[in-house]
């Protein structure tokens, strides 16, 4: 398990924050919302595999079936 995922997600978040501000300033509110949505979906795709792995591990260790 590598820690770089934390940095990846945080940097995506900061980048999206900056993009959001720029798009808001350029009067493109609808695009800023779409950008946020896409970012959340991408990051959630990264996180969801790890969550499923965690649950699999717990199920294996504590004999939950």
């Amino acid at each position, binding site marked *: *398990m590598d820690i770089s995922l934390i*940095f990846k997600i*945080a940097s995506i*978040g900061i980048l999206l924050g900056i993009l959001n501000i720029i798009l808001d300033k350029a009067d493109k509110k609808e695009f800023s919302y779409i950008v946020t949505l896409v970012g959340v979906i991408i990051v959630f795709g990264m996180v969801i595999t*790890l969550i499923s792995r965690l649950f699999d591990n717990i199920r294996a260790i*504590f004999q939950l079936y």
Partner: protein
Amino acid sequence: MEIVQIVGIGIISTILVILLKQSNRLEFALLVSTITGLIIFALVIDKIKYIVDTLGNLARNANMEFTYFSTILKIIGIAYIVEFGAQISRDAGENAIASKIELGGKVIMMVLAMPIILALLDLILKILP
């Protein structure tokens, strides 16, 4: 020194979460804290496995009934999963959802513990004249 690693990851991700919250990215702050929890758990999972295996060996050597031991293990596992989910919801300010997750966990634990409670009642009835 794994403990240094764990504490370091915690501090760094706390700083990142605060940074993200400052720039109004609450969803990413939540994801970062979730990932941090996952990574820390992944660091200690081998040790948890070792502890559980040791306890299982002890229980087997003491001729304890194994179903009781596996029930306790299951309850611990459910408690951990429930705590994980509830903490995430509570972090995001959704206290209601967190309470419901905990309720679900408690009910399932109660169902798992029922055979033990019944066995205990049987024992008490046997002891009573």
